[in-house]
């Protein structure tokens, strides 16, 4: 088991696929907290988020043979969670507001605030008011510490679009946070 901890995700996936499916627990343990946090930011409901993550792990296991070992497992599992959350949104027909009235300008100062853990709670409240098309890349970048390339894989967007959305998200968030002070 000690060795298992040293293995990369992709190596464990290969072991699960070929040798011992019970090793899948290691994957679940590695990702459940991160994925729960991610889903919770998006759904804002603990039970629904936990259900979504459980369902995502089950879907990931069922489709584990479709995972390409040359790619990053974390992007793959985040993608599954993203799909699962979108399904929940579609089922609940939750309206995702588009803030047409928001102006886009520089939001560089916000970057430092985001990195500060003390502001997380406040940020979370602001994020909830943002359209998901902006909040999701922002969350992945700052809270989940994903690279633009990884976010591009998870959301299936071009890298340039990811950058644009993150920049716009910072501006929108600045406006929202300032107005809710």
């Amino acid at each position: 088991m000690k060795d298992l901890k040293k293995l990369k995700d992709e190596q464990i996936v290969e072991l699960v696929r070929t040798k011992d499916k019970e090793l899948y627990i290691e994957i679940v343990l590695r990702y459940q907290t991160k994925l729960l946090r991610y889903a919770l930011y998006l759904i804002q409901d603990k039970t629904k988020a936990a259900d979504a993550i459980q369902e995502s792990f089950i879907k990931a296991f069922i489709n584990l043979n479709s995972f390409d070992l040359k790619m990053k497992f974390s992007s793959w599992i985040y993608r599954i969670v993203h799909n699962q959350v979108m399904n929940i949104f579609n089922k609940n027909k939750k309206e995702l507001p588009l803030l047409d009235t928001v102006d886009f300008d520089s939001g560089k100062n916000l970057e430092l605030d985001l990195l500060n853990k003390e502001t997380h709670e406040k940020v979370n409240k602001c994020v909830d008011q943002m359209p998901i098309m902006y909040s999701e890349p922002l969350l992945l970048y700052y809270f989940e510490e994903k690279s633009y390339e990884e976010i591009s894989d998870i959301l299936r967007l071009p890298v340039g679009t990811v950058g644009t959305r993150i920049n716009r998200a910072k501006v929108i968030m600045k406006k929202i946070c300032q107005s809710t002070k």
Partner: protein
Amino acid sequence: MSKYQIDIPKNVMSKIEAEQIRMRPKWYFLLGTLAIFIALIGLVILSIFLISLITFSLRSHGPMGIVRYQQLISSFPWWAPIIVVIGLTMGIALLKKYDFSYKKNFLFIILVFIAAVLLAGVLVDILGFDMFWIKRGPMRRFYQQYDGNKQEWNNIIKNNGKGKRNFQ
């Protein structure tokens, strides 16, 4: 242990151990890829052939064009586009549903494919490959029929003008 009411690791692993959930075999995913691959090959062949045929017919346009187009349509291999549509739909549905992995903009792929095929079809006609197909290749009979009918109609018109009918 999860912070929330649901114990995710326990729930997931109990389902795996009880074999309530099973991994889909590799062939399942290969089938989806294969369906798309075959459908795309079919689409390429069909479309190139169709485009070159259209440009060929436009180039050799003569009298009785409408009748010749009707003949062309009546002898068109309609099974081919049906297979293409079924293959593409099935393949994309399978992969979209179960291949969560990486960016695949199916709409973009299909649009680029269609553009490439249109270009290839016109090139085939310009470079004269359709004349080669009249003599040999899988579409030989189709082209010959079309070409033969055209000659026949030309003969009819020519001979009608002289008050004669002479079928070869």
